[in-house]
């Protein structure tokens, strides 16, 4: 559907050019690429067995050449656990955010564009979901469906959808009021094309920032649920559960808190930086 009018000057190339100029966004991108690289090639970096093999004699060893991040209270290599933990954390963060973006974004766009009874129904449903504290809601879902990774994803996604619907709906309402939407209607543009080519591109800014921020929040809330035993089950390493296990040894082995903590911080930071950069790069008004 892309016009060939743009061949010499493709919009994606233009977006990349603007993105490159933003130093903090590029730092975020490099960071994100490193984290993604680690997550994807975790098995090549260090085999999974190392992350779950318990060696009784190696408990709570400080960082050394053999164990760069030390070992935990069961004598497992902590570096291997953090590396493999990235898979769980990123999977949870990205998949829940993307799923809630797709479901919430479409619901929100239709509610905002059409309004009326459908809008009212959906929004009241969202109000009901929002009136339940998110942790409680996730707990209830996990308790009802059973504690495993898939149910954890469902639980977190459900508690995230209402805020996405609300955000997208409000942005869409403000854009649907613009003259250029009316202009588009005047030359017979279909509703679907209006939502796709007129409303969503102009709503991108807040939605992208919200999504990248929510990836960070999702990682944290998954960590929280794992912390109370309702999420990823041991011995699977996940950054949140690593933190919660390490908490008991905070004074004996503080390094056990540093590594997963820094990993969570870095991934959250990189998503936020990339999100900010993307928002700016996608807005032609902030050109040059």
């Amino acid at each position, binding site marked *: 559907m892309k*016009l060939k*009018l743009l061949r010499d000057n493709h919009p994606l190339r233009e977006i990349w050019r603007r993105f490159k100029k933003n130093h903090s966004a590029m730092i975020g991108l490099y960071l994100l690429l490193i984290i993604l690289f680690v997550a994807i090639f975790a098995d090549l970096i260090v085999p999974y067995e190392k992350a779950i093999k318990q060696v009784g004699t190696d408990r709570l060893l400080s960082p050394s050449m053999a164990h760069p991040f030390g070992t935990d209270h069961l004598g497992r290599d902590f570096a291997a656990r953090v590396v493999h933990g990235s898979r769980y954390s990123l999977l949870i963060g990205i998949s829940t955010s993307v799923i809630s973006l797709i479901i919430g974004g479409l619901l929100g766009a239709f509610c905002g564009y059409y309004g009326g009874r459908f809008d009212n129904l959906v929004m009241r449903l969202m109000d009901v979901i929002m009136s339940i504290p998110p942790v409680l809601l996730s707990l209830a879902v996990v308790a009802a469906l059973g504690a495993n990774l898939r149910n954890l994803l469902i639980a977190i996604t459900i508690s995230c959808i209402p805020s996405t619907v609300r955000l997208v709906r409000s942005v869409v309402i403000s854009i649907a009021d613009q*003259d250029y939407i*009316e*202009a*588009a209607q005047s*030359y017979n543009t279909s509703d679907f*094309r209006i939502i796709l080519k007129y409303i969503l*591109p102009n709503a991108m800014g807040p939605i992208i920032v919200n999504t990248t921020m929510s990836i960070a929040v999702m990682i944290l809330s998954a960590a929280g649920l794992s912390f109370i035993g309702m999420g990823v089950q041991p011995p699977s390493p996940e950054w949140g559960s690593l933190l919660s296990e390490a908490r008991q040894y905070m004074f004996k082995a503080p390094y056990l808190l540093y590594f997963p903590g820094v990993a969570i911080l870095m991934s959250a930071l990189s998503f936020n930086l990339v999100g900010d950069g993307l928002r700016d790069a996608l807005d*032609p008004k902030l050109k040059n």
Partner: protein
Amino acid sequence: MKQPIIEIEHLKKYFPVKEGKLHALDDISLSIFEGQTLGVVGESGCGKSTLGRTLLRLVEPTDGIIRYDGRDITKLNRKELADVRRDMQIIFQDPYASLNPRMTVKELIAEPLIVNKIISNKKELMKEVDRLMALVGLSQRLSMAYPHELDGGRRQRIGIARAIAMKPRFIVCDEPVSALDVSIQAQILNLLMDLQAELSLTYLFITHDLSVVRHISTNIAVMYLGQCVEMAPSKVLFKNPVHPYTKALLSAIPIPSSSMRHKAIETVKGEVVSPINPLPGCRFAQRCPGCGEQCAHYESELIEVEPKHFVACPSAVKAYMAQK
């Protein structure tokens, strides 16, 4: 005599508001003839823009008939309406707000052609966009620019190019120059008039600027609070205004003469009454210098005082006839 391309009969549009009904258009009837320009003037909030939008059914009328080429378009379904809209386009007041900020000039102008599947071949599409840009006086180098990078005049040229892309017969110009500098206003007006001659277009030209409307219109309709109070050929209206509101409106045109410097301009007293649930009778009565008892009791019907000159005020008509 030329055929009317648009005929409106008893067109009404009421917006529901908290306090009742806002009468944006109240029983308007008029005709627009092929190749002519009907200027619609009136102060802010008198329903001029609603009239333009209702004609294209961007706003659904509450009641009344809109005929395009003799065919009532108020009852058309979506598909039939799409066919009609190919012939009827609109140019908006704010050239910035009416252009999608995420599209380049080329994409903006190509959009109606793509949406309506008029040209599917990309090479031809590009050629047509180039032709349209040249036609409205946009230089080729701007084709990749975004609207925010251009000045108001160029943006409005994009709006015009987009409106004529589908080769329409009738265009609603909704205050196309009021957001522009005076020097650019003239350019855009001349462009619109050139295009009218070249493409044999018919315009409904909405404005509050009397000198603009005089410049461009064949006929003029004066609106006050959702009603048409006077309608006449442009020259006649400026020479012999009959309705008290039209007179007041015309007296407000500044005259570039030193002798006029010390004369106070006669203005209309008071403020426009609310268009929400208006009282029966003449809408202008509260502000009218010649208002009498009879004004509260009649519904404004247009009376023909001379050929093609219609006035909605019986007492003013009586006075005018007596004078004659």
